[in-house]
């Protein structure tokens, strides 16, 4: 049974004079425990798909079932609850609260989880910080941490409510290659050992290769759905060539 089920999902932005079709009739299934990479050039609709999967945005048409629950039917409060307990977000720019300690940052999702009593918050946040290897730096503020450490804090924060899904938006975009590898290894471990469903959004094929399945998104459509990353690479390469021919950017290509 699929944990995530998208059927003919479209997202259209109405900009007045033009309508931008960011996603066109996307249908995918993601099973529990998968490690999926969403690959595509900028403007391909990756971010829109990511926001929709993360319940930050609603589809214009089509259906999104998360664990057999139709997300389009949920109100704002229910969506917030889904984001709080079912999905963990990891962002490219970490998005930690400034001038707030690592521990307090990890505590934030627990504040919005009524199932976590106040007295357990600190110990639980500390436990997750230890799991990402930052047990020694709980009282450090983001500006006292390296990029890799900040991303680890963000990952601890994403995990602290024990969600089944981890949504990572270009998580290594701001990191050097060595730190990137460490972070990707952490994701692989979370997927392999803990059975977490990891959805990774990236434009970088090398990063994507750590996943088990690739979804290549171009012009708002899933062009390739494969476990063979060479096929994904080919599709992206072909796309890059046509782009050069048209000398058109991704944004323009996806608008009508």
């Amino acid at each position, binding site marked *: 049974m699929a944990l995530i089920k998208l059927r003919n999902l479209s997202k259209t932005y109405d900009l007045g004079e033009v309508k931008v079709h960011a996603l066109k009739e996307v249908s995918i299934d993601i099973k529990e425990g998968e490690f999926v990479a969403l690959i595509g050039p900028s403007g391909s609709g990756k971010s829109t798909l990511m926001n929709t999967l993360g319940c930050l945005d609603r589809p214009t048409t089509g259906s999104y079932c998360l664990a057999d629950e139709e997300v389009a039917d949920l109100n704002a409060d229910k969506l*917030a*609850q889904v984001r709080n307990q079912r999905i963990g977000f990891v962002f490219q720019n970490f*998005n930690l609260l400034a001038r707030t300690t690592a521990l307090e940052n990890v505590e934030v999702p627990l504040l*919005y989880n009524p199932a976590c009593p*106040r007295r357990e918050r600190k110990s639980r946040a500390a436990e997750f910080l230890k799991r990402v290897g930052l047990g020694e730096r709980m009282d450090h503020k983001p500006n006292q941490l390296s990029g890799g450490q900040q991303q680890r804090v963000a990952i601890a924060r994403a995990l602290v409510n024990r969600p089944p899904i981890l949504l990572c938006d270009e998580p290594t975009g701001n990191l050097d290659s060595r730190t990137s590898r460490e972070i990707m290894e952490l994701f692989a471990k979370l997927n392999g050992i803990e059975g977490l469903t990891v959805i990774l959004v990236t434009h970088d094929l090398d990063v994507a290769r750590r996943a088990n399945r690739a979804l290549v998104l171009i012009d708002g459509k899933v062009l390739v759905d494969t476990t063979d990353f060479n096929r994904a690479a080919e599709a992206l390469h072909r796309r890059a060539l046509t782009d050069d021919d048209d000398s058109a950017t991704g944004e323009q290509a996806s608008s009508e």
Partner: protein
Amino acid sequence: MDLLDLLVISLRTLGKNKLRSGLTVLGVVIGIASVTTMVSLGQSASQLIQDQFQNLGSNVIIVLPSASQSGGVRSGTVMTLTEADAFAIVDECPSVLAVSPFIGTAGQVIGGNVNWKPDQMLGVGPDYPIVRKASLSAGAFFTQREITAASKVCVIGYTVARQLFPDVDPVGQQVRVKNLPFTVIGVLERKGANMVGQDQDNILLMPYTTVRKRLQNSAFSNIDLIFVSARSEAVSTRAEEEIKALLNERHRTPPGEKPDFEVRNTAEVAGVMTAIMGGLAAMLTGIAAISLVVGGVGIMNIMLVSVTERTREIGVRMALGARPRDILRQFLVESVVLSSIGGAIGIALGVGIYAGIIALLNAILPTTKWSFQVSIPAAIIALLFSAAVGIFFGYYPARRASRLDPIEALRAD
């Protein structure tokens, strides 16, 4: 996420921007401080007026002669009141408790080797202590016997006693008034100054008969004023009516003519004075309240800036599971905490300023006694009011924050 969490978060956030938070609450601090000062000063002033009228006597009604007019010719103020009028009032008016005739005189008093001029030298009746609510610190007041005999006795105020007899007990001492020897038989309790700063203890009291017969050498029974004490404040208006009716009858005032006397009710005057002071205080408080509104607008302004600045934080919180109402509450609590802190500081500052002004007034006007009274309910109301300012002016920014689109908010820089 309950109120405690919200309080902790808002205090932490405000603590990160101490200077800005401080400057933001300044408006509320000034507003609440001025309201507190004004309300307290108003209370002290009202208290002062009440004390003064209490000092004057209990439920005092003053009967005084007025310019009589006949055939259109004003014949000036004439002595139309007699001691018989005074006795009639106390005998025939059921709402009257006591009366005292009143004859004013002036002069020097010599005691030992000191020559002193009391502000007031009065001839009064034996019920003067009841009427003027005066008590004695030593000795006794003169009685009907001394009145009848026109005895050369006197009762002196605290100031006179201190001036003439700094070292000895004044009771039993001899003083000379207009070359007549008087025996001091009592000393009045200290009263302090009245509203206009006049020392009420610089006084010498004699039987009114003595003043008339021995000092003024008069054969008539006219008196300057009659002091009347009503049985209670409630019946003071009725007492006034009874006196007017009685004296109109006694003086045979023709119907339609103005009577040759006037009746003044101090309770009414006190009421008017208190009302004026109350109105004045209310007006000043109103002006002070305007500064509170300005302070509230300041909070709203900074909260709006804060929402814009922290758009990304709002987006992150929403992505991590904050509901719109959680964001609304967070910002609302923040502005309420801000304004309540301002309110608390304002109350403290206001009480401080008020204490300073009271001290200053008492120093400049040593004869008046301004009381310092901090009203706890008023302080609580001020604090609640400042919290209300926070809710009122914080709601719009908080609502704006809660309505942000999480995706847009996450993209903000």
